[in-house]
C-alpha cells in the first residue's frame, strides 16, 4: 500500500508528511518528523509516555494512526513551553525535584497541562485519577502530584 499523505498542525505549525498506513501518530512524530520528545513505553496505550493533546483532548499517540492526524491540531511536549518561558507544570516539576530518570516526564507535562486546562483547581484525588494513565516507576508520584497541584495554583494566579 502506498504511503499516506497527511496535512496537520503540530504545536501551532502546519505540517505535511508521508507515513505508512500502519504507523501511529507516535511513530510519525518520532521517526518521520524527528520530534522525539514523546516516548514509547509500551505501544499499547497503557503507560502514557506518548501523551499528546489532539484537538484539545489528552490522547495516547500510540493509539492513533498517523493518517488520523489529518486536519487536526496536535500539541506535543515540544510545544508546551512558550518560547523560552516554561509552563508552570514544567517549572514546578523542576523546583520540586519531581523527576528522576525523566522518561515519563514529557507524558506527565502534557497530561498535567491538559488537566489544568480542563480543571484549573483539581483536588489531589482528581489529579491522581487524571494522571493514572501516566506510569512512573521512579518517583512514587508524590513529588509529581505536588508539582502539578502547585502548578495549577500558579496558573490560577495564587501563591501555592
Amino acid at each position: 500500500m502506498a504511503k499516506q499523505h497527511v496535512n496537520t498542525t503540530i504545536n501551532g505549525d502546519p505540517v505535511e508528511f508521508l507515513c505508512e498506513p500502519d504507523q501511529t501518530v507516535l511513530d510519525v512524530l518520532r521517526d518521520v518528523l524527528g520530534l522525539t520528545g514523546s516516548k514509547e513505553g509500551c505501544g499499547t496505550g497503557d503507560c502514557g509516555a506518548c501523551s499528546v493533546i489532539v484537538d484539545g483532548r489528552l490522547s495516547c499517540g500510540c493509539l492513533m494512526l498517523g493518517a488520523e492526524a489529518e486536519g487536526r491540531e496536535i500539541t506535543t511536549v515540544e510545544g508546551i513551553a512558550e518560547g523560552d518561558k516554561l509552563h508552570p507544570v514544567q517549572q514546578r516539576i523542576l523546583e520540586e525535584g519531581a523527576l528522576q530518570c525523566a522518561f515519563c516526564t514529557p507524558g506527565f507535562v502534557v497530561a498535567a497541562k491538559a488537566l489544568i486546562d480542563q480543571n484549573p483547581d483539581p483536588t489531589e484525588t482528581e489529579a491522581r485519577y487524571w494522571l493514572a494513565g501516566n506510569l512512573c516507576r521512579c518517583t512514587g508520584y508524590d513529588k509529581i502530584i505536588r508539582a502539578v497541584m502547585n502548578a495549577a495554583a500558579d496558573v490560577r494566579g495564587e501563591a501555592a
Partner: protein
Amino acid sequence: MTYEDGKLKVVGTRPIRPDGVDKVTGRANFGADHSMPGMLWGRILRSPHAHARITGIDVSKAEALPGVKAVVTGADMAESSGSADAGESAINLRDLSRNVLAHDKVLYDGHAIAAIAATSDKIAREALKLIDVGYEVLPHVMDVDEAMKPDAPLLHDDMFTEGIEPTPETSSNIAKKMVIGFGDVDDGFAKADVIIERTLKTAPVHQGYIEPHACVATISEDGQAVVWCSSQGQFVIRDLCSQLLGMEAADVRVIPAEIGGGFGGKTTVYLEPVALMLSQKSSRPVKMTMTRGEVFRATGPTSASSMDVKIGATRDGRITAASAEFRFQAGAFPGSPVGAACMASFAPYDLENVSITGYDVVTNGPKVAAYRAPGAPQGAYAVETVVDELAEALNMDPVDFRALNGAREGTKAPYGATFKVVGNLECLEATKDHPHYKSNLGPDQGRGVASGFWFNIGGQSAATVAINPDGTVSVVEGNPDIGGSRASMAMMAAEVFGVAVEKVRPMIADTASIAHNDVTGGSRVTFATGMAVVQASEDAVEQLKKRAAKMWDVEVEDVVWQDGAAHTATKDAPLTLADIAAQAGRTGGPITGNASINARGAGPAFTTHICDVEVDRETGAVEILRYTAIQDAGKAIHPSFVEGQMQGGVAQGVGWALNEEYIYSTDGNMENPGFLDYRMPVASDLPMIDTVVIEVPNPSHPFGVRGVGEAPIVPPLAAVANAVYDAVGVRMTELPISPPRLLAAIDAYKAAAE
C-alpha cells in the same frame, strides 16, 4: 569525612538539576531517540517455546526479502568462555552469549534466536516471519521448588551443583548451594521460649522501567565501533560487547544516552552485541529497540523465591537463634541474587546464632537480572513477617522488639563482618516517635512495620575537572544520571571550590573520553563517583593555589582557598577562579584536577517503614492509606533526590506486595507481558509517601554519604503484608497479595473460625 555540617553552602540545598530543562521539554535524548544516516532497523526472532532443542534454522527466505541487509543467529557468535568482570560481579560470558542469541537450545518463551537488519522496521518485522526454525519441544519447569526435584526437566546437562561436597554425579537444575552463619542454632533454638517457623513465596517481578531497551550501533570497515545506548554503565556495555564479539575495548566506543530507568535491569547487554553483529554484516548503522512485550519476556525480572524462616526468642524478647533456607529461581542461566538474600535478610538483628542456606536454581524463564537491592526484598519479606509474628507472640510492640534485638555498631553481621557506625537504632527510634506510628486506625485498617538493610558498594570511579578560562568549572564523570546524580556531582564540586552551583557544569563522558567507571547501580554513585569528583576538585584547588602563588610570587604554603578564591596574608585582594584561570596559559597551562579511585568504606544503609492499609472485605482490594519511610542516608547531598529515591523504592515494593507477578500458561508462556496486566502502581494507587532522612554520617566519605537508592525497596513487601495481617487477621505468606488471593484467604479464615 572532611566537610563539616553547619558550614556547608551548597550541599544539602535543593537546586534545579542542570539537565532539568532538557528533561521537561523533551529535548533530552534517550536510547531510542538517536538516529544515524543510512541507518537500518533491527528486529529479533524469539522462541515461542519455554524449552526446546533447535533442530535447524533456515534464514534463506528472510535473506531474500528485498530490503533485508543482514541476518544473524547464534552460530555467528563466537563461542565465548570465561568470565568478565562487569564491575560489580563476575559474569559468565558463555551463559551471556547464549542468552543474547540461543545456540542449541531455547530456554524460555522469548529467548532470542535470530536477528534481521532491514531498510525499514516494517520489512525487518516481515522478514522475521520468513525465518524457519525447527524445534523439538521439551518439557519445561517454571517453579523453583519443582525445578529442584530429582525428576524435574533438566535445562543444562553440564550443571552439577556447586557448593556440595562431593560434587554430585548427576546434573540438576541446582546451580549452587551456599551456607553462611555462625554460632550454634540448635543450641539457640533449644534455649528459646517461643519459636516461629514459616514458609513464604514470591513470584518473579520485573524492574518495570518505562523505557524499553534501545541502541544504535555502527562498525566501520576497519572494525571500530560506536554504540549509542541507554544503560546503567557504558563501560560494562563496552566490555561485554567487546568480549562477546572478540573485539578490543578501545575499538568499541559506547556513548551513554539518557536512561529511562534501570533499577539493575540495564547493567547487562541484550540488543547491543546483536546490533553490532548486524552492523558488521551490513556495513551500516543498525537501530534496535525492544517492544514492551519483549522487555517482559526476555529481559531479566528478579527471582521468584521459596523461603523457610525460623526464629526463636526468649520470653523477655531476645532472639536466641535464627535460620533460613532461601530457594531462588535464576531463570535460564545461573546467577540469582540468593547470596545477597542470605547475607542481608537478618542483618538488622544482633544475633549470636544464625545459619542461612541458599540455593540458586535454574528454571525456564528469562535469565534474572539485578533489581534494586537484589535478593534483599524477598528475604526481608520472609524474615520481617516472622519477626512480626514473634513480636506478637511475645506481646511486644514490633518496633520495640526490633530495637531490643537491633543491629548496632559492634554487631556481627550474618556474613561475619562487624558493623561500624550504622543508623539502625536511630531509624527505629524515629519510627517509634513518628506521628504516623501514634495515629489511630479504623475498622478493617491495619499497620505494619518492617526493617531493611543494604550493603551499598563503592567501586571504581574516575573524574576530571577542568577550569575554563572564565573561571567556570567543567566536571567530567562517567556515570549515567538515573536519578539526579549530575546535580549531586555539581553540588559537591561547587562546595569544594566555594562557588555557586550554576558555575559548575557536569557532563557524562563516553568510554573513549574518560577512564573506567563502574555502573550506576549498587547505590554507589553519590558515594564513589562523588568521592572521585571531590578528590578531583581538591586536586584542582591545589593547582589553583600553586598558580596563585606564582602570580603573587609567594610560597604556596601561604595561600589558602576560601569562597571560590585564593587568599594570602600579604595581599588585600583575593584571586578568584576567573582571575587565575585567565592567566592559566602563563602560569603553566590548562588547570585540571583528576581522581581515579576504587572507593573504599561504603556505608551500609538501614531503614524502617510504617505502612497503613485498609482492606475491602468484599473485593480483597488493599488500599495504602499512609506510608512513612525512614532511612539513614549518611548525608543527603540533594534532599529532594534522596527523598525521591525513598519514595520510588516504596512504590516498587508496594507493587511487588500487592499486584505484580509474572503469570505463565501451562505451556510456559508469559500471559501478561504488558502494563495492563502486569499491574504496577499508578498515581491513584498511592498516597503521598512521607520520608524521614536520618543522617548518621559515613566517615569514609568527605560529606558522610551513604548510598540511598536500593534500601527503600527492601521493607515494603513485609510492611504491607504485616499491615494486612493487622487489618484482617490473615497472614499472607505468598506474594502478591492480589484481591482474589486475599479474598480467598479471608474467606478461609472466616470458615476456619466458624
